[in-house]
């Protein structure tokens, strides 16, 4: 759970909590804000643009190991 973003935590909570879902339906941006979701993510979610939302959610996936290769500059 430590790696979960506030948005993912919100989606999982809303899937199992009808009262939370109802609060979201009445006031989506405020409800997301109360769950610690950042303003940019709120803007995308509230737009309802599925393509943008998919992109946003994909970017939230657990980061893997990042290998940085530094190539020496030509002399």
């Amino acid at each position, binding site marked *: *759970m430590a*790696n979960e973003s506030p948005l993912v935590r919100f989606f999982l909570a809303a899937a*199992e909590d009808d009262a939370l879902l109802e609060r979201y*339906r009445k006031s989506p941006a405020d409800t997301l804000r109360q769950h610690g979701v950042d303003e940019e993510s709120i803007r995308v979610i509230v737009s309802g643009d*599925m393509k943008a939302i998919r992109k946003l959610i994909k970017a939230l*996936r657990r980061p893997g190991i990042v290998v940085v290769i530094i190539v020496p500059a030509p002399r």
Partner: protein
Amino acid sequence: MPGRLTVVGLGIRVPGQVTDETRRAIQSADDVVYLVADATSEAWLRRVRPRARSLADCYREGRPRELAYRQMVERILGPVREGRTVCAAFYGHPGVFVFPSHEAVRQARREGFEARMLPGISAEDCLFADLGIDPGRGGCQSFEATDFLVFRRRIDPRSSLILWQVGMVGRIDARRAGFPRNRPRLEILQRALVAWYPSDHEGVLYEASPFVVLEPSVRRIRLSDLARSAPDFATTLYVPPLPAAPDARVLRRLDIRSSEVQRATPCWEGDSGAASRIARSRGG
């Protein structure tokens, strides 16, 4: 203890569409591997089984999908061969548009292991519910978009037609097609459809919502505008049926009145919920 394989589907909206038997299979397996489409599904799986391993790294840019699938099958079957119980979880229904799930079950059985597949809620199930379509009325034809083209599938335009992965038409590698890069291929698909339907016939570009707080994406388009419509890789095209009249001679032989025959209707007729949703999304 011999190894055993259970292949499950998580549905489209996780965890709401995860069935009880799927949840139990995930909880009780020695090892869990998964291939899911979004961070919420992955997070839910890792809550249930923190050591579950993703198969997503089998996909690589430019690598043929077939090679990725073969690697997934080997990753699924490895622990089964070591005598462990394995649960392989996939997005949606594990037997619909998923090659490695079927192949893993087939290969496990060939090698003498017990293997089973549990059904999940597919994107097609969501489409029927969201668009208000009953495939029992007038029938329903369903093809992957590239398959529809390359095999020149013969369809009956008086029945519903569903084409999957229209945004990926003509692509056989793991790269996301993207728009406008895929427009020439979409034009080929558009021409093939207009050969069966009037060019002003309307279809629906549909995408099921993976999140409980979001509506599905539903966009009504003319078939002649398909190539300009920029469908996403996950977009499905639903084409409603053309009007059909029952055969009078067959009706007489079966002793059925014409009024007793259920006719297929476009999804936006006779369903106010679907109609208003589509109207709201029109042009979106």
